[in-house]
């Protein structure tokens, strides 16, 4: 039975195809439309999933949407009733969208299926938003049973939920309700610090270690009425998202020493301190929620999803200090993962489909997106006017490792695209993490982004302990851990007082992936999950003695991660990469500046 899951109309719309409980394909729409965080109907992702699954013109057996639109509409109306006569401007923005689009989802699905050449589904089905998150967390996990915690901005009414998964059943037990939301609290600070909501949250998380938690007391005292069990109320006098278009109110400005930072404004220690403070409060709340989930369910393992579950610093603390002996986190924890969760929920609970927990997990390494054959890639490169160098299979990892070891920045495009926000080696930019100045170079010249932003290491799973204080695998880059003490260096001279100054510090023998507090957001790479990327890391280790590389997503500033070979080639040309390893081919920028000089590649 083919079940198509869809999420759309808020941010990061996506599609997923599940066949008899097996995850066949999943992708975010942004990768196809090339609009970052695209919220439109996932037309491209839907077509990809159906074709990848070999679904014929008869269409899937069921189509399910990831939330209940009328419950969400009810929340919108009740909010309007609660704030009128204020709130007209946000009513004016949201209501036309609801009347035009969000109230007619079955019609939209039918129209889009017909346009794509598939038979109309008998009807469109609907799961709950947090039910979809909970399902996306539990069903692919390796656990027979577990507690489930989902935390995000808001779904219909729920902003967080606790449940239990057992065999093929997911049961949501308790929830917290709008407007009291951990995700929206974090987003309010994201907005106040001058980053985009639903995009800049991980920037705020990256900024936090530069600051001191000097505002944490104020947040606890004035903004959050927090209970021992992790539930809380927000003081809505300080927030603007009920009746305005801004996340925070003037009272919030007064509390934190002035208006929000402008998006292109200078980054000061105030923003760093705010980021650290809200991060600390977030971790505290999540830990309390986890303890409550443990007591409520009596389970020893936890599955986690929802946008807040992408906060890998909090996840790391949950792992180290929380009550659970094991944790599994859905790699597409945001709303995109809701498409997958809805399809899995309907298979197991709507169709009574059996479930068997898979060792490791059932996500197939999150490599659920489109792929191209070697011949297709070769044809595309030649059509684009590139004469690539072809490398034989066994030599390929050594060639890629050689480029990285020469200090070059390499775009890596292989196999199926990742599902979720992280590039895990198939649509990645990789470089030597030991090279001084590599982080500044990639931030400034390649990604063209803020200098304070850290990069993640991709490390051989079997050798991760040589570098990090990591107790468990982290295949999806969802946990942080400290770099081992013996690798850390104390920089000479006094510590700089500015964010920019601190960002230039080289704090270990792998400086490009060591954050200012000595932590790293780790991806462990195993042979089983990604043999090609593992082979590159193993070859790099053989050449240099170092079993890790810097791994960042293969995209230019403000663009989604590349999807197709054409996207990869465009990004390679525009972002100033030194080399592009694409399928069995290597394309090199002969004129590109490189610490190691020209290595005789092929001009593009």
């Amino acid at each position, binding site marked *: 039975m083919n079940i198509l899951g869809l999420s759309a109309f808020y941010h990061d719309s996506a599609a997923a195809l599940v066949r008899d409980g097996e995850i066949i394909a999943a992708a975010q729409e942004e990768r196809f439309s090339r609009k970052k965080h695209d919220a439109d109907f996932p037309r491209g992702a839907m077509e990809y999933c159906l074709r990848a699954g070999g679904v014929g013109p008869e269409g899937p057996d069921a189509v399910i949407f990831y939330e*209940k639109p009328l419950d969400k509409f009810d929340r919108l109306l009740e909010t309007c*009733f609660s704030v009128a*006569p204020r709130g007209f401007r946000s009513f004016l923005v949201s*209501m036309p969208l609801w009347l035009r689009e969000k109230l007619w989802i079955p019609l939209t699905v039918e129209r889009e299926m017909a346009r794509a050449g598939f038979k109309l589904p008998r009807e469109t089905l609907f799961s709950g938003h947090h039910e979809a998150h909970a399902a996306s967390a539990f069903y692919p996990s390796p656990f027979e049973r577990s507690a489930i915690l989902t935390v995000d901005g808001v779904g*219909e009414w729920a902003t967080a*939920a606790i449940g239990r998964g057992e065999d093929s059943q997911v049961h949501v037990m308790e929830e917290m309700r709008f407007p*009291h939301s951990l995700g929206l609290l974090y987003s309010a600070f994201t907005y106040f610090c001058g980053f985009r909501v639903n995009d800049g949250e991980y920037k705020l998380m990256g900024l936090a270690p530069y600051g001191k938690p000097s505002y944490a007391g104020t947040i606890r005292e004035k903004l959050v009425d927090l*209970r021992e069990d992790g539930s809380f109320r927000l003081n809505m006098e300080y927030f603007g998202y009920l009746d305005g278009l801004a996340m925070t109110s003037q009272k919030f400005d007064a509390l934190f020493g002035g208006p929000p930072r402008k998006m292109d404004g200078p980054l000061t220690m105030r923003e760093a301190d705010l980021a650290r403070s809200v991060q600390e409060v977030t971790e505290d709340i999540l830990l309390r929620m986890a303890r409550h989930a443990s007591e409520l369910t009596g389970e020893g393992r936890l599955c986690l999803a929802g946008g807040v579950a992408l906060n890998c610093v909090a996840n790391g603390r949950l792992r180290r200090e929380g009550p659970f002996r094991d944790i599994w986190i859905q790699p597409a924890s945001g709303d995109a993962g809701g498409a997958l969760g809805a399809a899995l929920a309907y298979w197991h609970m709507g169709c009574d489909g059996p479930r068997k927990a898979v060792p490791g997990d059932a996500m197939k390494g999150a490599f659920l997106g489109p792929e191209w054959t070697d011949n297709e890639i070769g044809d595309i490169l030649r059509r684009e006017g590139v004469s690539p160098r072809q490398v034989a299979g066994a030599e390929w990892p050594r060639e890629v490792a050689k480029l990285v070891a020469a200090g070059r920045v390499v775009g890596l495009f292989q196999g199926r695209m990742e599902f979720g926000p992280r590039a895990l080696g198939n649509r990645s930019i990789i470089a030597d993490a030991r090279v001084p100045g590599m982080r500044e170079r990639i931030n400034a010249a390649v990604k063209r982004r803020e200098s304070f932003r850290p990069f993640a290491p991709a490390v051989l799973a079997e050798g991760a302990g040589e570098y990090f204080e990591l107790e468990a695998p982290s295949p999806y880059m969802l946990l942080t851990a400290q770099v081992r003490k013996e690798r850390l260096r104390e920089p000479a001279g006094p510590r700089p007082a500015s964010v920019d100054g601190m960002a230039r510090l080289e704090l270990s023998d792998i400086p490009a992936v060591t954050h200012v507090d000595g932590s790293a957001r780790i991806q462990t790479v195993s042979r089983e999950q990604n043999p090609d990327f593992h082979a590159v890391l193993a070859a790099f280790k053989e050449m240099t003695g170092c079993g890790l590389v810097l791994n960042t997503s293969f995209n230019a500033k403000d663009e989604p991660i590349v999807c197709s070979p054409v996207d990869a080639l465009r990004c390679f040309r525009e972002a100033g990469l030194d080399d592009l390893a694409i399928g069995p081919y290597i394309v090199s920028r002969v004129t590109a500046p490189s610490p190691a000089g020209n290595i005789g590649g092929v001009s593009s």
Partner: protein
Amino acid sequence: MAGDGKAGNRLARLWRAASGAARAVFTPVLLGVVWVLIFVPGRLALVLLRRDPLKRRFPGGASSYWVKSRPPAAKDRWKRQFS
């Protein structure tokens, strides 16, 4: 014939522009009327009845703000756009 096509395109563009302008004017007016006639009195009623669907009293005074979720409904729940 080509001239007819160009004129048709121009007409379609004009029609789209006119309907866009009408929408830009009428939508706020209509929604404004709805706001004044429905939401403002609705808010007044909530104030008089001392009801707050968003539970904004701060601090709330409860020992916990978790609420029990509704038990799983019948199988036709999947067909419903509401829980």
